[in-house]
């Protein structure tokens, strides 16, 4: 949906004075928002007992793949609109600006997660290995927020990245066993993960 807004906005000139910048910022923000939503599904199911969300609709997988999709658009828009695919300068950027590198790191770590979201590839891994691999989402989320905060620092205004950091902290707290034991719905058992 956000993509449709961006495309319609672009065609009808509703993306402000700097549409290229708007596209880069919005795709990045949506990748981050979808990452947070992906992380919120497990605690949501544990607290409400609505296991249908994960068992029947596999909402977590869907949101995770959308996050990867927007992260890809974000990277692609940087490569095209910021750098016009000038590989020499992209390399220069990688070598000199760690704020960009941490964004690259987050994206690269998302690739194996997206790939093993497809049953054919997931079956190559044991359930335990798959879970271990998908723990990477924590590192990805932290990297993505640092990437955002580091670049937003240009405006000396880091309130937005701090909000994301607070949300992430809350989502992590909801995974802390003593917390989740208190909040969990009585029908939820933990062995299933």
């Amino acid at each position, binding site marked *: 949906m956000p993509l449709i807004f961006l495309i319609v906005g672009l065609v009808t000139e509703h993306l*402000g*004075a700097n549409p290229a910048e708007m596209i880069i910022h919005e795709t990045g923000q949506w990748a981050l928002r979808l990452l947070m939503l992906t992380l919120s599904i497990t605690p949501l199911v544990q607290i409400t007992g609505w296991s249908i969300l994960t068992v029947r609709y596999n909402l977590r997988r869907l949101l995770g793949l959308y996050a990867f999709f927007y992260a890809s658009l974000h990277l692609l828009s940087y490569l095209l*609109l910021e750098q016009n695919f000038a590989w020499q300068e992209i390399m220069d950027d990688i070598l*000199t*600006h760690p704020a960009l590198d941490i964004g690259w790191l987050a994206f690269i770590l998302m690739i194996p997660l997206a790939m093993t979201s497809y049953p054919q590839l997931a079956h190559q891994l044991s359930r335990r290995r798959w879970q271990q691999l998908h723990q990477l989402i924590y590192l990805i989320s932290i990297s993505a927020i640092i990437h955002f905060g580091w*670049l937003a620092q*240009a*405006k000396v*205004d880091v309130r937005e990245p701090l909000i994301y950091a607070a949300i992430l902290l809350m989502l992590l707290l909801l995974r802390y066993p003593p917390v989740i034991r208190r909040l969990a719905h009585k029908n939820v058992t933990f062995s299933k993960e």
Partner: protein
Amino acid sequence: IDFPHLKPSAFSTGEQSTPFAKITAYANFYEFGTDKSDPQRYAQTLTTRPWSVQVVGEVEKPGVIDMEEILRKFTLEERIYRLRCVEGWSMVIPWVGLPLSELIKRFQPTSKAKYVQFSSLLDPKQMPGQEDRFLNWPYTEGLRIDEAMHPLTILSVGLYGRVLPHENGAPLRLVVPWKYGFKSIKSIVKMRFMEQEPLTSWIEAEPRAYGFYANVNPTVPHPRWSQKKERRIGEFFKRNTLMFNGYAEQVSSLYTDMDLRKYY
């Protein structure tokens, strides 16, 4: 049209001007918020009359000059200049203004006047962004005296032949076209002539990223991004940034024998 009889200038560029609507809708003016669209939304609370500029420090004749006097006593010109923001975007703006040197001469700087510091209005009631302490308000900037006296340096009172919109720094702002936009301080209320290099808001906020000179220079990167290219507002892809924003012929002599990597 507020200024019908403007003197044209040989310093004006022939490049296509950025549309008025985009110049006013996309601006950094943190006194009204850090989003580019905030100034247009919130700057209408600014009261621009009465307005005066206080001139203090190393001058023979310190004093106060009223805005009406500035408009009456100086010949206003149209100066169509490129503006390059440190963030990597640029515009072409038809300013209305007067050479800063003309105003400075009236106050007769002494031989000790090596620098001039500018301050913006400090009034959180009118400028709600000043409630947030990202920068040490009031916003301050500075120039070396030869930069201030350079014929390219102007005080602007308008654009597109109209009175300067609030969101672009009304009623009086600096324009130094070969430097990054943040040097061109808005809503000026004070000028102080000094012997020492003045501190500026951005140096205070992040000295590694923002220096006193802030000359547009594609070879010196910002710590977090390259400065080689810029996006001209209205264009989709980036273009190469020019040394001194394309004004090298006029200003490079100000910086001979200076290491521009050190004095960024």
